[in-house]
């Protein structure tokens, strides 16, 4: 595997780094406190083409997945909440680009690519998280339309989304539908006071017989989970994996700076061996997680079937690494790490969310171990 990035990718990476250093990282704590990302920042992210980066047919930048991973890494370094916008918006866009009808693609993708339309992915429900195949939201056919009824919870960017990709059960089969925010009987309630992702503008959706036209069904009935959500979740896991690397890097940066400035017992923290142990773990973890993400991105660019499992592994390792790094970052900062003066408390809260969204660590463990055990039984090297 070639882990080096090309000159073009490096140049794009520099652009992302500069954007995050100037426009995102200095303000992310404020957004966290205000529980919202300013519309101007979302607009600037869209103007730069980052929201529709992989939608070339609609005027997007046509970014390869390795470069998109670099973008997610940098955004994750600045703000996990903004990362969640890229994630869920991308999940909807990609699922639609992949499985939408020509009419749906023509209607929605240009707006999604330019960021004029914000998308949000709605799978999780109050009683259904990891057990996503048993969703409770129901779709019933009525003439040339479907009636959607149910609840969706923890929907990232649900407060600002124009278009939701709803996974519901139609005729007992998982099916994906597009639902516009202005649909009558759709109630969108902001979710506040969360542990992390506070400025990701999460929402609780109540669908009380929301009528959607029949052309809003995405893909085919019965393929809503395996293919439509499957495409979206694979992409989402990749974004979160790369973003986790960025958050880990933010922990490294903040903690190295602090350890080189702060003295205890007459010597800098950097010279205390127990601190060095935590720093070394953090740094080695960030590099290992980055390599897993590069591998997943490279396989995605090749369209390799193994990319799906490699993405699970990258998401699992990178999100866990970010939580460990953030935990140690707070520890090294001591009481200072618990206050709003330093960003590590936000990293800590956001990292916990990274370990839960787009498939919890435990779900990834089940998938990785089962997959590997099956390969072992067939005599294939894991």
């Amino acid at each position, binding site marked *: 595997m070639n882990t080096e990035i090309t000159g073009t990718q490096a140049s794009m990476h520099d652009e992302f780094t500069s954007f995050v250093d100037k426009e995102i990282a200095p303000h992310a704590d404020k957004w966290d406190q205000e529980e919202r990302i300013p519309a101007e920042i979302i607009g600037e992210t869209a103007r730069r083409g980052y929201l529709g980066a992989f939608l070339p047919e609609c005027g997007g930048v046509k970014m390869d997945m390795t470069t998109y991973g670099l973008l997610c890494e940098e955004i994750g370094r600045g703000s996990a909440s903004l990362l969640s916008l890229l994630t869920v918006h991308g999940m909807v866009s990609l699922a639609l680009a992949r499985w939408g009808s020509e009419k749906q693609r023509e209607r929605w993708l240009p707006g999604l690519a330019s960021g004029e339309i914000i998308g949000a992915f709605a799978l999780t429900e109050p009683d259904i998280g990891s057990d996503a195949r048993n969703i409770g939201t129901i779709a019933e056919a009525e003439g040339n339309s479907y009636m959607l009824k149910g609840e969706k919870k923890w929907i990232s960017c649900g407060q600002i989304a124009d278009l939701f990709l709803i996974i519901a059960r139609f005729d007992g089969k998982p099916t994906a539908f597009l639902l516009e925010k202005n649909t009558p009987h759709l109630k969108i309630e902001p979710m506040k006071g969360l542990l992390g992702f506070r400025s990701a503008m999460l929402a609780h959706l109540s669908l009380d017989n929301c009528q959607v036209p029949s052309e809003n069904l995405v893909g085919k009935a019965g393929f809503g989970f*395996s*293919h439509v959500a499957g495409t979206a979740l694979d992409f989402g896991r990749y974004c979160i994996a790369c973003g986790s690397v960025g958050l880990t890097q933010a922990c490294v940066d903040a903690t190295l700076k602090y350890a080189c400035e702060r003295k205890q017992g007459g010597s800098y923290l950097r010279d205390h061996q127990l601190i060095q142990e935590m720093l070394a773990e953090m740094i080695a973890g960030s590099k290992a997680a980055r390599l897993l993400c590069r591998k997943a991105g490279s396989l995605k660019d*090749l*369209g390799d079937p193994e990319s799906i*499992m490699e993405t699970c592994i990258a998401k699992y390792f990178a999100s866990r690494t970010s939580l460990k790094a953030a935990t140690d970052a707070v520890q090294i900062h001591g009481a200072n790490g618990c206050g709003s003066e330093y960003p590590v408390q936000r990293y800590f809260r956001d990292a916990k969310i990274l370990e839960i969204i787009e498939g919890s660590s435990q779900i990834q463990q089940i998938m990785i171990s089962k997959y590997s055990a099956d390969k072992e039984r067939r005599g294939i090297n894991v």
Partner: protein
Amino acid sequence: MPRSEVCLLIIFTADIIKKEVISMTVDEIKKEIRAFLSKYIREPNINEDQDLFASGLLASLFAMQMVLFIEKKFTIKVENEDLDKKNFATINALASYVSHKTSSEKIDR
């Protein structure tokens, strides 16, 4: 090598692969599918009409892995209108689907 020449080489190579796929027989397609399935399926001697999904032989991620395999190996695009269980459920169904898609492309060419 200049970038333009690299691009031409990639296009040329892809064209060769596509021509090879188009000339594949159904049995050759089945052989490729079996080789792919052997990496994922829990049972080595699966019947060509056995339902891959109903038999619980496959992990939940397999549906998308299969799509990626078909697209990469046979250089075809699985479209939303192709989302039909009868295209993907068995080895015979898959071979028939791939054969149909590749011959459609042959006509288009």
